[in-house]
């Protein structure tokens, strides 16, 4: 991807006036609003570079033979032992990072990654071992007051800054769709009961991102969108009168529908505005968009490549990627470990059996794919730094080694050194020091100029890594 012609000039982009000003106001955001606007409209220096975020999830936890609960056991025997070479954790003790076999793909990225031990969402504690992936990006209390989940971190950011790019967010997964409660196939949620279906077909994702007009001229597209807007208006009217003919037990469904049409209208308006901006030209060389699940490595790299391209062209700044869901027994994902390592069993079995000769290797394989993405960002210069410097990349799972446990997630955060992040350490939040994972979320949001003070069950900021 050395082709530079499709690298957008942000000045042109802003001059075009394609930036929608209709900003939704979130609770407690008033103060930050001006700052957010200011960043975008005034500064052409450092601040003009986009601030991005990716949340990437891997299923079934990771191999931690030395401490299945996800936090270190404090027995003398353990203290004397060397760090396990195939543990997911790169090193044994909190402090400066060193890398073992499992985490070796991140060795070259030492200055750009941090690990966190002992973090989790309290909302996920009581969810079944196969369901806690639902709340990884939301922290919702699905057993208690938030039965239909709640807004995810990427969408909080997208609500404030999403209008600055052609797409407010990019939601990807390996299985596609929404899944159901308890077996979600997407990380992103617009709010309670509104999961955003993830996209999983590379070709389709590519077309939606970079070829949205399907060969039509831009004038034609604009006329079409204008037409859509006026007709959606009529449809909305039509549906309102329909609602009155239904019993009150069905009003909820129609409201859901009406909301969707309204959202669609807004999107049409937005798309229409963006037609004034030229589409980025993307070189598809080396991109195999027809890759299938039978080739896990190529497939997953392709998904990462698409996110990279979306970030690089500033088509969006917020993305999620759910690599396998916790319930993929009906899909090819179930066989990934077989394809990759020749493991004779379902991928999910690794989590339960933790076979010594496959588990670490499986983690290492996953780390390799993720490191590939980080490396790509770091290799792409941007301003006087590189893309990784302004991209927060959260990577983790909602289980430790003990696959039915929903506490003490494996968590890694990378990038963003120009957004105030300090890297290169393993942080530990055990015992009295334990804090919610949501604290990290709040700090991440702040780092990408979303001035929230609280997210889910957060109790403060994560000052350890983010200024």
């Amino acid at each position: 991807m050395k082709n530079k012609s499709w690298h957008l000039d942000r000045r042109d982009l802003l001059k075009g006036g394609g930036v929608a000003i209709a900003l939704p106001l979130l609770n407690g955001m008033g103060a930050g609003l001006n700052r957010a606007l200011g960043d975008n409209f005034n500064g052409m220096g450092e601040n003009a570079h986009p601030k991005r975020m990716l949340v990437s999830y891997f299923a079934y936890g990771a191999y931690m033979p030395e401490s299945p609960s996800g936090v270190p056991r404090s027995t003398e025997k353990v203290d004397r032992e060397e760090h396990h070479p195939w543990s997911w954790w790169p090193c044994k003790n909190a402090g400066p990072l060193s890398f073992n076999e499992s985490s070796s793909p991140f060795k070259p990225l030492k200055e750009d990654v941090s690990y966190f031990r002992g973090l989790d969402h309290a909302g996920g504690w009581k969810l079944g071992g196969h369901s806690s992936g639902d709340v990884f990006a939301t922290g919702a209390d699905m057993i208690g007051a938030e039965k239909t989940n709640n807004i995810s971190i990427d969408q909080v950011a997208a609500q404030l800054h999403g209008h600055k790019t052609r797409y407010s967010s990019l939601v990807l997964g390996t299985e596609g769709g929404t899944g159901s409660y308890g077996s979600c196939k997407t990380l992103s949620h617009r709010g309670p009961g509104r999961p955003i279906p993830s996209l999983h077909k590379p070709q389709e994702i590519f077309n939606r991102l970079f070829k949205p007009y399907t060969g039509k001229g831009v004038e034609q597209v604009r006329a079409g969108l204008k037409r859509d807007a006026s007709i959606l208006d009529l449809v909305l009217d039509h549906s309102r009168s329909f609602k009155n003919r239904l019993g009150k037990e069905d009003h909820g469904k129609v409201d859901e529908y009406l909301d969707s049409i309204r959202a669609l209208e807004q999107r049409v308006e937005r798309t229409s505005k963006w037609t004034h901006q030229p589409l980025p030209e993307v070189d598809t060389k080396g991109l195999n968009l027809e890759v299938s699940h039978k080739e896990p490595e190529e497939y997953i790299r392709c998904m990462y490549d698409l996110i990279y391209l979306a970030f690089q062209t500033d088509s969006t700044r917020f993305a999620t990627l759910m690599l396998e869901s916790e319930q993929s027994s009906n899909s090819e994902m179930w066989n990934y470990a077989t394809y990759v390592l020749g493991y004779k069993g379902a991928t999910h079995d690794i989590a339960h059996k933790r076979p010594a000769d496959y588990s670490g290797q499986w983690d290492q394989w996953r780390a390799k794919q993720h490191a590939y993405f980080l490396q790509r960002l770091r290799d792409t210069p941007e301003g006087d730094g590189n893309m990784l410097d302004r991209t927060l990349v959260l990577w983790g799972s909602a289980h430790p080694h003990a696959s039915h446990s929903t506490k003490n997630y494996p968590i890694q955060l990378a990038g963003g050194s120009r957004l105030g992040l300090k890297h290169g350490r393993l942080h530990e939040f055990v015992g009295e020091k334990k804090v919610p994972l949501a604290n990290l979320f709040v700090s991440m949001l702040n780092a990408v100029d979303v001035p929230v003070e609280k997210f889910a069950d957060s109790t403060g900021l994560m000052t350890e890594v983010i200024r």
Partner: protein
Amino acid sequence: MASILLEMSFRWCTLIGFSGIYILRIIAAKFCRERPELFSFIRPKPINKTACVDRGLQIFRWLLGAMFFQVVWQLPLGVLAAAPVNDGYDSLVRPFFKAHCIACHGPDKSKGELALHTLDGDLRSGRGVERWEAVLDAIESGAMPPEGELQPDPSKRKAVADWINSQLRAYVKAASKEVPANTTRRLTNFEYENTMRDLLGVDLNLIEYLPQDPVKPYHFNNTAEFMLLGPEQIDRYLEVARRALESAIVDLEKPKSYQSRQEWDSGESNKGFAKSLKRNEIAIHNSRRGTPGQGMAVKDFPRTGEFRIRFQASAVFPNGASELPLRFVMGYNLNINSSTQEVAPVGVVHLRNSPDNPQVYELRGRIENFPVQKGRVHRGKLQPDRLTITPQNIYDDGTLNDENQFLYWPRQPDMPRAVVDWIEFEAPINEIWPPKHHTRILFDSPLRQSDPENYIRQVLTRFMSRAYRRPALPEEVNRFLEVYNLLKPQLGSIESTMRETLAMLLVTPQFLLHTKSDGKLIRHEFELASALSYFLWGSMPDSVLYELALTGELNNTEVIAEQVQRMLADPRSKDFVSNFTNQWLSLAKMKTVPINRDLYPRFLYYVEAGERAGTEKPYIPTIRDYMIDETIGFISELIRQNASVSNLVDSDFAMLNQPLAAHYGVEGVEGQRLRPVEIAAEHRLGGLLTQGSVLIGNGTGSAPHPIYRAVWLREAILGDEVKAPPAEVPALSDSAGDSAEQSLSIKELLAKHRTVESCNDCHVRLDPWGIPFERYNAIGKYQRLVPEEGTRIRGFDRKRDTDLAGYTKYLEGINTREVFAESRLPHGPRVDGMDQLKAYLLASRKYDIAENVIRRLLAYGIGRDLNYRDRYEVENILQQSSKNDFLFQDMIVAICQSSTFNRRTSNERKRDNR
């Protein structure tokens, strides 16, 4: 008593309120006349003062009468009912709980997340009804108190059950008068695709373009509460509708027809080992260069429209077989050794004629449904896109894998071969232009020229009435006439304007949500017609149902019975059976269980050589595919025969074709067509429990898995809800499959479960159900002997075993130990193996099994999980069907006649009460 008085005072208020409205209206009308400018928001409608007073008084009298009646009727009842409520609880139920339940389900412990100490004796409040129902189930079935605990006196048990039953029944009766629980829901993707097919007359694959429906094992994906309608969903619907209308409405100019043809002569082939193969012959699973098996590339073709493939074919049967299935697939060239190739099946013909009697066959389909292979740049030139038509010889006698290397090559000369002399491709078929699906929407009429506005109105009215599954209301038609008129100047032709108008119409809630009656303009019968057709066809009502709804005749139990039988006999009911069965029995997972190739080297077909060697052969039907057909075909057959539900447990027939029969060891079945085959005891088949789809899906691919199978039996057949292992319980290695020797230690694994208390609580009631399945191995075959524990089994080894017979001999050598399949069922007898398990289920659990089937069918039919409110309606259906040994079709009829299925909306009730 106090509550009754309170209630009466409420009623007085309502009474006065209602009649008061009319008085207020009179006053308002007076003001309206005097100060019209203040009341411009009131519709200026002349009000007849005396009529208003009359109506007010009439209502007053009517309500007064009703109240009087109610008081007289309720007073004694209320007093009678009120008295024993708490008495019964305090004297009977509470002591019972205290003696038998509270220790585990109380303030100290709440096993199974159930605590009883917070229940009060007043069920009428609706508090804790779900818990009460769970308690009732446990007490009635005898599942609680658990074995080993003090058991209550049977008469006490019954008395408590009766008490809960009477209270619950009273509550349900009262609650059902309130807002009905049934909510409308959107069409599932499956229903959407079928509806579009029947509405537009074009059979297109649309599901792949829609976000997935939510899936939950053992639940149905049409459950209303999960069926969301977000903006993404609507966005996709719009895209898909546009795509479909592009196909359904054509341009008037007759398009050019594309034709291609390829011929093969019967000369001798001169290549290598296949010398015996003529140039026009296709050997099994073979796609050799120069033969029709390689496929015919089509480079000129339209992107939409119906296509036709004609071909002349026959078959050679050296082994004396009589039928050869020749399957056509179309899409990518299958000879490319890669994972990205994609094809879709066109159809199968069963050849019985010999080459001296060649015959011409024809297959049709829609081009849109087939993947097009994009042209690549080759030597600096862009190759055209292409579609490759590949005929496949999929003859399979179940022994194809039984030879040494290169699959079954040594036997190839003895195996049936297909002969294809030529293939012709033509698209679009334009003999009749515009095609029927076009004229069904834009019908021929002189009005089109003479009175366009009226013509469009008629087109819209007809289409909308079908799309909305009930007569379109004039205001609805007007709205879309408006849309049409808005689009017309921009889009030009009637055709393109209509495409866009209808696409918009297909994202309205009237189309996307299931049809509901409004109690006024839209008759209840239309809701019923839709409910029936989406239940039994997964699609919109046909004209017969629509007419019956229009005339009102449908709302009659006789007519419903007649229609249900007609619908089940219609081929469209296949969709219902497969969709329902797949979800009910959670079948899909069997396709992704990784079969251990070392242990079962001959079960699937693998690529022999090249880059993809060792992976499963794509696009070749295998026994595993036929097993899904077997299970769906079995349920189909039960419905067709109107057989008893006890066949689910054991039957005297199995649905088999030749490969399946070979797998299970049944002789005398020839050909690929699935059919009911009479079976004997030694086949160890019959019913669902021994079908490969179930056994493989609930195994690990290397070994049987008693826990998976137990969960399946309890969930799918007995209708229990088995809770997932709790989050905090450390997972014991719950699946074997890592290596061959580990796969046999399942017994130890279960024993380990029992030593941990938190596991044991559930597993003591679970594991015994799975043990009797143990003699059926991981690929669903009966296997009495296994190796001694700890024996290392080696997989198939070509060098040592030479062929399957050699490997079988090796296995027989080490298979010396009898499989242990004996367990004592919870609250039941000791059973050894499948036969005894089946006997027990038939003797003691038939009622539960029938109830489960009814509940599943009903939940699928109404699109929501059942709850305590449906308990007594289910009981009615069950009673009714028990008279006739639970016949399948009769149960479906009874479900469709039930008031739960045929529930009225609150709007309708308002009207009914008026």
